Structures are given as C-alpha cells and as structure tokens.
C-alpha cells in the first residue's frame, strides 16, 4: 500500500509536460473522488468518533453535553478494561511470536528444497482462505473445555492418546484463556508469513551466497550476515501485518467464545457490548483507544517506508 503514495505523487509531474498549461486538472479530477470518499468515510468518521467519545452520551438518547476526557478516565480506572488490554497484549505477543516462528520454519524448510514444495505451500497457505468466523466455529468445538468422559475436540484426542495431563480448560481459564484464541489465529496465518519469508528467500540472489561461501563463511555465518539482513524488511512487514490484525481481533473471539464471555474479553468485544447497549460515548472511546494503539504500530512503519521510497 505504501508504495502507491510516492508514485501517485510523481505521476502528475510527468503528465504536465504532455497536456500543457492546465496539466494539473486531469490528475486532480482523477484522484478527487478518492480524496473525497476517504476524507468523508475515513477521516471524517474518525473525527466524528472522537467527537462522540468526548460527549456525555451513555444511552440511545441524544448527548447530555460535553464530557471531556471523562470517558477515557473511566475506562483506564476500570479493572475490566485493564484486564482486556492485558488480554490483548498477551494475545498479540503469542500470535506474533507463533506465526513468525512457524512461518519462518516452514519457509526455511521449503527453501532447503524439500520435496513436494508446491503441495506443502498450498497446504500451509490454505487456512488463510478460510474466514475467522468459519474457522472459529470449528475451533469452538476443538477447544471445548470439557474433560474426562464428556471431553470433545482436542481434549478428547489427548484422552484417547493417554495424554490426559494435556487436557485443559482452554479459553475458559481466567489467566491464560486468551492464549487459546491465539492457537487458531496462528494456525490461520502462519502460512501467510511463510509465503512472505519464502518470497524473501527467493529474492536473495544465489551469487550472494556463493560469494559468502567463497569467503569461507560457515552456514551459520552465511545466515547471520547475509540472509537475515536481507530478510529483515520481510520480517518487519510480517510484524506490521500480523500485529495490526491481532490488535483488531474480534470475529475469532465472537465465533469461539461469544461476546459476553469474561476470560476472552478484549477492547474490540467490549466496544461491541457497549455499542449494543447504547453507550455510544464509551464505545467510541474504546474505538479511539484501539485506533491509537494500532497507529503506534503502523505510523512509524509508514513513515520509515515513505522515507525509504523518497531516498530512492
């Protein structure tokens, strides 16, 4: 997405020469609909959301006046909101580490010319084609927390394999329950990260490796000094993509645990509950907080890629 920004900036300059004096008219007309639509539906609505979050509007009636930052203050003194932020942090960390490790491992294995590469690539990438809601329905069953006789899903599997000690309450555990939600998320997106890394590996010219080997680099040194540096932009992209998806997690939790379940509460599900009961100010405040959290991750990345593109 980021690469389209500079090229859009560059294009009018080229067009000017051809069309002449009013060369800016056509390009401006061309991008005007997009600018208006994005202006209204993205930035306009963000503004309206922030405006709502500053109001005293806690039921379906009209606003009772300006509340300032009170809604935010309420949220950050609310134990349940802190708990859901903590859940979000745990989930994001697990999801990121899980997909990066698995994705890299698979890419590395395929890179080493594993037989049946295209088959494995398809198998690993396939889960991404399934929506979170659809896979959530299946994982809801797999992650059933009944143990012993009534166990189903994974707990049942562990039972039949005589690995009873592995049976656990999954997402209903108060402290670690949210990590169970990360399992299907990792299953779903590791293949995507693998594809990213595989592309990264393929982008490294064979000559570089040969040159390194000629210089007497060991296999580890080859990875440490040649391949890993080349892969770091890929890793960064993967972190940004997975990271922002993870911060917005909602559908997977709704499909597996439902909206009111306490142990899997994250800001997005809380926002939905508040919105449904008509507490518009509070849900808008949660939405703004989520936006800020995602921005903290995304904006530095956008800035750095923009700078890189300009330098080129």
């Amino acid at each position: 997405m980021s690469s389209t920004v500079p090229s859009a900036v560059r294009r009018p300059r080229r067009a000017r020469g051809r069309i002449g004096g009013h060369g800016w008219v056509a390009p401006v007309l061309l991008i005007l609909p997009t600018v208006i639509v994005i202006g209204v539906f993205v930035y306009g609505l963000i503004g309206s959301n922030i405006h709502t979050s500053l109001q005293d509007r806690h039921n379906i009636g009209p606003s009772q006046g300006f509340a300032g930052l009170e809604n935010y203050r309420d949220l950050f003194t609310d134990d349940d909101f802190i708990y859901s932020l903590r859940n979000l942090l745990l989930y994001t960390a697990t999801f990121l580490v899980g997909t990066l490790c698995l994705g890299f491992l698979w890419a590395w294995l395929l890179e080493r010319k594993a037989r049946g590469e295209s088959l494995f690539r398809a198998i690993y990438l396939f889960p991404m084609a399934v929506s979170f809601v659809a896979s959530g329905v299946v994982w809801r069953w797999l992650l059933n927390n009944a143990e012993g006789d009534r166990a189903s899903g994974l707990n049942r599997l562990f039972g039949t394999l005589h690995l009873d000690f592995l049976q656990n309450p999954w997402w209903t555990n108060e402290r670690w329950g949210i990590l169970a939600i990360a399992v299907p998320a990792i299953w779903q997106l590791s293949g995507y990260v693998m594809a990213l890394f595989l592309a990264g590996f393929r982008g490294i010219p064979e000559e570089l490796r040969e040159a390194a080997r000629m210089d007497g680099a060991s296999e580890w040194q080859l990875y440490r000094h040649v391949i890993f540096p080349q892969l770091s932009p890929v890793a960064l992209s993967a972190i940004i993509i997975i990271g922002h998806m993870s911060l917005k997690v909602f559908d997977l939790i709704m499909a597996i645990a439902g909206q009111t379940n306490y142990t899997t509460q994250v800001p997005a599900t809380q926002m939905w509950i508040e919105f449904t009961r008509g507490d518009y100010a509070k849900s808008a405040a949660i939405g703004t907080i989520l936006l800020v959290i995602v921005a903290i991750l995304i904006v530095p990345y956008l800035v750095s890629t923009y700078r890189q593109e300009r330098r080129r």
Partner: protein
Amino acid sequence: MNATRKALAAGLAALSLLAVSACGSDSESGSTDEVEVFTWWAEGSEKAGLDALVKVFDEQNPDLKFVNGAVAGGAGSDAKNVLQSRLQNGEPPATFQAHAGAELTDYINAGQIEDLTDLYEEKGWNEQFPEGLLERLTQDGGIYSVPSNIHRANVMWANPAVLEKAGIEANKTYDSLDAWIADLKKIKAKGIIPLSIATDWTQVHLLETVLLADLGAEAYNGLWDGTTDWGGSEVEAALEDYSTLLSLTNTDRQGLDWPDATQLVIDGQAAYNVMGDWAEAAFQEQKKTLNTDYTAVPVPGTDGVFDFLADSFTMPVDGPNAAGTEAWLETIASDEGQVAFNKAKGSIPASTTADTADFGEYQQTAIKSWSEDEIVSSLAHGAATSVNWLTDVTAAVAKFGSNNDVAELQEGLVEAAEDNKPE
C-alpha cells in the same frame, strides 16, 4: 483495445454509483398500504409463530400488505443495532418487536415510541389483559406496547429416568433450594451431571430464579425498585446458593447455548435444567411426552410465582403508516392472533379472552398458573430492568463464572444497581 477498456471502466463506475443510489432511495418508496414489521424472528418456532400471525393479519386486513423486516442473528442484538440506527435516522419501521417491560425504558426516554394508553382505552384492551400484566407494562403512567405472548422463566425440567438411576423419586417436589441441592449432590456422586447449564445469559437466568426462590416474590420485586438491598445478607445467602448450584453444573458451559443444555436432559446425560418454557418446543420436537419422558415444574422454592416475560409490539414515533401499525397491533391483541401465534411458538396468550382449549399439556399448566399465581418480572429477558442494568449484571455473572468469587459478584451487582436505579 485501450478505448474499450476505458469505456468498460467508466461503465462499471457508473453502474456502481447507480447501485449505491438505488440503495439510498429504497426506503422512500414505501407506500401507505405497506406495514413493515421488524423482528428478530427468523427461524424455528419463532418464525412459525410470526407466519401464523401474518396469516391472521392478512385475513383481517386484506387491503394492507405485510412486509417482513426480520433481521436474523446475534440472539436479537444484531436486529437491535439495526433498529437503533433506523430510529435515530428517522426511518422507523411501522412496528417493532421488543420485550415487554423495563426493556422499553430506553426507547421511552429517547422519545422513540408512542404512549398507547389511549389506544388501550379505545380498543378495550384493558379488560382483555390481566391486571397484573397491565401493571407491569405501565411505565411513567403509560403503556407503550401490546404483548403478543407470555413465557414463564422459572421452570425446572427434569429427566425422570435419570433421577431414578440416582435413587431419587421421579416426581419429587422441593420446598426450598436446600433440599434440592442435597439431592443434586447425590446425583453428582453417581457421576451424572446434576444440573445442566449453558453460556452467560442462561447463568443469569439461573441466578434470577435462585434470587426468586431465596428472597420470595416481594423481596425479589424490591430488587428492581430499590426496596431490597443488593448488598444485604439475604442476597448474599442467595448468591452462595447460586455458587453451590453452579459447582454442580457441567464444566463446559461457556461453549454451549441453551438448546445444548436442554439436550443434555433430553439425552439423559443430565438430571435437571432450569430454562424458560420455550424449552418445551425442544422436548416436543423430539416427540417426548410430559410426565413420562420429562417433567416441568416450577424451580424449587418458586412454586406459586410466575416469573414472566413477554414479547410485544410498539408504535414508533413518526412511523410511516400509523393506520397500518394500529391494524397490526389490533391483530396482535385479537383472540385469533393470540391463539395462532402462541400455538405455533409454544407460549401462552397474554389475553385472558383467548380460547386455549386445544393447547398442549404443558401450556395448560402454564395458563392455569398465569391466572392464579403471583406474577414477577424476569431479569434475564428484559422485563425487570433496562438493557443497561441487564448488561452490567451479565458482565458480573460472566466474571463470576471464571473466578467464582461470591463477594466480587455481589459487589458487581450492587454497582450495577447503583448505576442503573430508576429515578
């Protein structure tokens, strides 16, 4: 080649614009003979009930056209969100479904629905609905909806075969929760699930019946108008009982919905289930016979009390077709409408004049209780409190389900009451 591609792109763009504008103008085209009825009754016995109602409506009003505005999903929460955005944009349906009672508070305070008191007077509905119900429907001195049916929430379903296996008399009745809990423990000792339960709202449902059993009808009613102290020792004792009961349920409750929990009783994996009488439809669908394959009695300690909830229809302010709305409400209140709808949905008529002679066996017992028992309002189903209060209670109960801290549950309930107490 390039030119055709450009033309194609332009055509596509124009088409998409057209599609957008077509969506926008859709709502203005409603002519006055259309009556849009907004519900979340999209499947199962609810859909069957709505269809039966529409049949009666068409017969009574051949010149009006019924438009189904049902929005499926989310146990009604999706529909409520759609409805709210339509009400706020000044595009209300002719009438919409809502639980009768305090759930309407938000709509009333926001000035979104009409006071129907005069209509009740005019149509003689005051004589037709029982006084206790009218009392519960009245808010701020007015009545804002017409009830289509009555459900009972405090019903205990049991599987006699399972009870026998555990050495308990099949038709045994209990005067109090304590006696019941003692038997539940015996059942647990046999390795059977004593009491089946499902996700959060069914836990709120159980808590509501426990409060009713331990506090009695009067003190239970007091919880909603502020005369009973949520922080008191009586409530604490009830919460202790609730905690004990929850420890006697299936551990995978968070992953189940109410039909799954009822199914455990039907299949003989669990002995008891506390659920509203819409569960009757589940037993009937599987060809079970009352008092042989299953029993349905009031929850221990709540005999003589009818914990009620009702669906009802409203008249939105500035609706598109006031005459049509009135016609729909009249169909709802009419005896034909009440009988047709409730026979299909498995509930009982709210009107006392409806002929219920050919209703099912369970429904007959409910009809009898409805006319004799003391009536209280259900918490879990929108009759006793506003949506806000219920949401706070549900959050506290959901939290309790994972940490089992009675003190914290009570604190949460006290807070919910303080935040939402009616002025």
